[in-house]
């Protein structure tokens, strides 16, 4: 009965409409699920982007472009009004990267801020007054819904099966590998960049398929958007030329390819050069040279194809091919020459570290120090992608089945991205889309096969076995270059038992995947870095909120222009939450400036104090996890500070001195004098043994017993220590009033007598008269 009722909806034109509507509803549900799974907890981070967005919204686009971040950061949140107002005449002083200041417009990717600015203005235009903060918080989840839609589109280009696209969309929507960077409040470039990445790829596939300049121009447009949003655009810049190059090598040159690539390259390069931070890089840096080279090659190939059509002479064609080869080699030679002579900038450091994995460790400690730039161990892959990680190769294999132009793209993307993700944890993000696409192809291929209700009629194998094998053979001859496992024609599944068992197992896996994603998201990726959660012995959750406590203290108890020095990881948070200027922050590209901070941290007090004075530092902030067993603290990052500053001052800082004679990194009695005299060590352990009974002070991160006598500080004084000792803030002492050096001033305060007099007095002699 129900079947008869449903019949008209599933057949003919109405059927198509019904299915279209269903698909739309499913997609909307997926988008909603994608957004919802990102709302476990909300903390806005990084603050700098939010501050920049506020500035953009208040002062308008052009003012943002020229924003030199050297004055009062922004007007307090309460005064957030729409009318663009001129920056008030405020005392000029540096907010970030003190004392250099930051030409913000020229040193960031503005795509993120501009996007939220546009959304803000559009909503206001529709008379929906929304606080810019809410837009910033919800931007990443919102865009993740769009990413799911984009992966539906791109997967639908790969296969005729409509379910593959929907599967890819839901995979993309809930996979932890993407959620990790797009939870609500994670207001970083990646929030919109992944959508742009996937959508640009979709447009590219579309334009290669159709050979239309319109799709090519759209690709270029979104490529330009991507360039303005994320430094990872170089991945696209290299992947599209590689795809084109491979297609040419496979002998698949076509006018479609020519039109789409030329359109994309010409317009995309122009678009990317509009971003001040990128500027003339596209024609000067080696990262972009492959795109240019392939563009040249494509022109040559097109020329040859044109000539070939006009001239039938075979010898002439051979000559022409030779000519092309020569031209290509010569232009490569010129390119190399230009690179060597320095006209074209060599590959930027990050990309060196991608190819030559040992490079960064030796030459650019500043890149190697970032935890996101570490190589990926296998559990991280499984954690982020779960069952998709083993469906992924299967899906790639299925791409070889038809191997049209778009499948070639997926294969190249898969191989390259898995290499990159293996080298850097951070690039797991670029791998995730292709994994979702391939896994969806694999799963949908299984489901499409096993969910067919009708059974094929088994042929009388004995009777015409000969005939079938003959026909199979001839079929194999026809499609010679297909895969081994797909030579025979598809027949179908004969029994309901096999259908039920396979479908049941796959459903189990998929349900497990959903559980996994929920678990990972709620446990691992939703605890923001500023608030730490821990479990008490009775199982209840305990929130460790030391970071915010300390930032709030800074905000309330320090003068408005107090400069805070900390390691660069905390720069954005201090700038945003405590609203105090910092020396270095997460986006500082001035290596020397970071090394200066590193030097101040890793030197003796006598050396550090002048550095602190020269940089007008008022407070020094360190993160110390020894009491709580919090391993991400500064002592564990300390070696990177040493390495980075050693790169600039090799005479003064030497990494070897921080290791014991046996090459161990220790903080206890056996720590080297250099280590124990370093400012970082002193600040971390100052007064720490007061917490313990005498001689029993223990560092719970490094699991070592500390020396009985704690370090003495003379040029700094303890200003604040948070509840769990995670954040310790020290005030830099002013110069002594009487002109003594700090060491003797402290000694005097303690009641020690001057050493000099003690020496002069000599041994006490009994007076005998």
């Amino acid at each position, binding site marked *: 009965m129900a079947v008869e009722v449903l019949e008209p909806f599933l057949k003919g034109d109405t059927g198509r409409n019904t299915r279209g509507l269903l698909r739309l509803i499913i997609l909307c549900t997926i988008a909603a699920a994608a957004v919802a799974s990102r709302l476990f907890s909300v903390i806005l981070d990084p603050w700098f982007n939010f501050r920049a967005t506020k500035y953009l919204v208040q002062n308008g686009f052009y003012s943002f472009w020229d924003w030199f971040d050297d004055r009062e950061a922004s007007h307090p949140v309460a005064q957030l009004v729409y009318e663009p107002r001129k920056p008030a005449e405020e005392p000029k002083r540096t907010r970030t990267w003190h004392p250099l200041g930051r030409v913000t417009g020229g040193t960031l990717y503005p795509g993120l801020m501009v996007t939220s600015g546009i959304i803000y203005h559009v909503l206001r235009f529709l008379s929906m007054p929304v606080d810019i903060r809410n837009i910033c918080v919800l931007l990443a989840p919102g865009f993740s819904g769009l990413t799911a839609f984009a992966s539906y589109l791109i997967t639908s280009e790969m296969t005729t099966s409509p379910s593959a696209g929907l599967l890819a969309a839901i995979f993309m929507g809930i996979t932890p590998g993407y959620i990790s960077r797009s939870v609500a409040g994670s207001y970083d470039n990646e929030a919109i960049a992944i959508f742009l990445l996937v959508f640009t790829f979709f447009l590219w596939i579309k334009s290669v398929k159709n050979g239309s300049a319109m799709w090519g121009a759209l690709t270029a447009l979104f490529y330009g958007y991507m360039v303005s949003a994320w430094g990872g655009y170089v991945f696209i810049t290299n992947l599209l030329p590689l795809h084109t190059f491979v297609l040419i090598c496979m002998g698949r040159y076509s006018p479609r390819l020519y039109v789409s690539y030329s359109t994309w390259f010409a317009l995309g390069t122009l678009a990317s050069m509009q971003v001040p931070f990128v500027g003339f890089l596209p024609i000067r840096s080696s990262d972009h040279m492959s795109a240019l080279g392939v563009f040249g090659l494509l022109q040559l190939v097109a020329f040859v194809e044109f000539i070939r059509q006009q001239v039938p002479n075979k010898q002439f064609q051979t000559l022409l091919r030779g000519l092309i080869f020569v031209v290509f080699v010569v232009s490569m030679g010129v390119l190399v020459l230009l690179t060597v002579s320095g006209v074209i900038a060599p590959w930027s450091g990050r990309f060196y570290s991608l190819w030559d994995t040992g490079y960064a460790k030796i030459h650019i400690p500043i890149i190697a120090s970032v935890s996101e730039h570490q190589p990926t161990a296998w559990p991280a892959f499984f954690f982020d992608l779960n069952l998709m990680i083993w469906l992924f190769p299967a899906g790639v294999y299925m791409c070889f089945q038809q191997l049209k132009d778009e499948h070639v793209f997926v294969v190249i993307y898969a191989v390259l991205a*898995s290499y990159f993700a293996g080298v850097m944890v951070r690039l797991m993000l670029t791998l995730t889309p292709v994994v979702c696409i391939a896994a969806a192809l694999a799963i949908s291929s299984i489901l499409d096969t096993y969910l067919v209700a009708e059974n094929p009629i088994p042929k009388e194998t004995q009777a015409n076995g000969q005939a079938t094998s003959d026909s199979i053979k001839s079929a194999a001859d026809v499609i010679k270059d297909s895969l081994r496992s797909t030579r025979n024609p598809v*027949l179908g*599944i004969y029994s309901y038992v096999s259908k039920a068992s396979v479908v049941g197992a796959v459903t189990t896996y998929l349900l497990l995947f959903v559980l996994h994603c929920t678990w990972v998201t709620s446990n691992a990726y939703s605890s923001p870095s500023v608030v730490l959660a821990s479990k008490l012995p009775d199982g209840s959750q305990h929130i460790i909120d030391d970071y915010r406590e300390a930032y709030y203290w800074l905000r309330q108890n320090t003068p408005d222009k107090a400069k805070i020095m900390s390691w660069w990881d905390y720069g954005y948070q201090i700038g945003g939450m405590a609203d105090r200027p910092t020396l270095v922050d997460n986006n500082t590209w001035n290596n020397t400036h970071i090394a200066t901070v590193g030097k101040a941290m890793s030197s003796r007090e006598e050396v550090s104090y002048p550095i602190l004075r020269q940089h007008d530092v008022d407070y020094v902030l360190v993160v110390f996890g020894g009491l709580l067993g919090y391993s991400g603290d500064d002592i564990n990052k300390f070696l990177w500070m040493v390495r980075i500053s050693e790169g600039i001052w090799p005479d003064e800082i030497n990494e070897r001195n921080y290791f014991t004679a046996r090459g161990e990194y220790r903080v206890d009695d056996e720590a080297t004098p250099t280590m124990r005299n370093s400012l970082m060590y002193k600040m971390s352990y100052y007064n720490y043994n007061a917490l313990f009974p005498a001689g029993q002070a223990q560092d719970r991160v490094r699991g070592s017993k500390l020396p009985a006598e704690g370090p003495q500080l003379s040029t700094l004084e303890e200003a604040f220590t948070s509840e769990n000792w995670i954040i310790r803030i020290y005030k830099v002492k002013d110069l002594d009033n009487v002109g003594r050096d700090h060491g003797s001033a402290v000694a005097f305060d303690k009641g020690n007598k001057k050493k000099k007099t003690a020496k002069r007095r000599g041994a006490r002699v009994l007076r005998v008269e």
Partner: protein
Amino acid sequence: MKLSGVLSLTLLSSLCLGAKRSSGGTFENYHAKSQSYAPLRLDDASYDELTATPRNHSVLVLLTALEARFGCQLCRDFQPEWDLLGRSWAKGDRHGDSRVLLGTLDFADGKGTFQKLMLQTAPIFLLFPPTSGRNAKPDGQPIRYDFTAGPQSAEQVVGWMSRYLPDGPKPAVQRPLNYVRIITVTTTLLGVLSFLSVAYPYILPVIQNRNLWAGISLITILLFTSGHMFNHIRKVPYVAGNGQGGISYFAGGFSNQFGMETQIVAAMYGTLSFATIALALRVPRMSDPKRQQLAVFIWGGVMFGMYSFLLSVFRIKNGGYPFHLPPF
């Protein structure tokens, strides 16, 4: 002004000549020697003479143990670099303007010195600054350089030296052209090219074989997603003992792994992928219903069991992971 310049120059050069002729100073003697054989080969006596205070030159001594019985691989690896550095320094500094002498003290020639310095390890660099003259350092204690980071290149050593040496010429290392290598490379290249041109018709179908490329791509992907690059960069051990005489195949900790572990994981991924491919592509193409049924059960069983095992392995790595499938 010009005249005085010329005058001082001639004076200087005559002084130099005079110094050379008189061959009085230690530096001049040894510098002359180093022109014919660099770096200098020292023994106890000449080492003491060179490093005696006061000295108006710098000395860089490499204390090494080249004889095979000491088994110092690092010493022997570094020796060619050191000879190269010595030669290019001698060539670049013919007149001794840098006032630096480079010398090698092998353990065989200088046991006394090794004992005096109480050295347990080799190779070690000692750089003695001048104690008299313009760039004198008052204490004259040598600066020591350990080879903690493995073998160094001559350029790195020059970089280290230049940091401590006073101003003066610092000849760059000049590597001789490696003719043998150039010839080998050219020959190999030509050989490969000619082989390719001859074998092209036979190679072409292999290159154009889709199965080959599919295999290559899948292996690459499996390699990378099972953490091969981590092994490569971090240089993890292949396996480790579990402390009870056995082998532990899986490293504890989420961001830690062994070489063999990644291979096991890659094999698991490979099996699972292969089962997926078989179920999706092979099985529906089977013409015999009985065999098909069997194949479905086998591949489905393999997939289920393997995935369950994979989850159990993951629970070893991540203690709090709550999910598992029945068998394991």
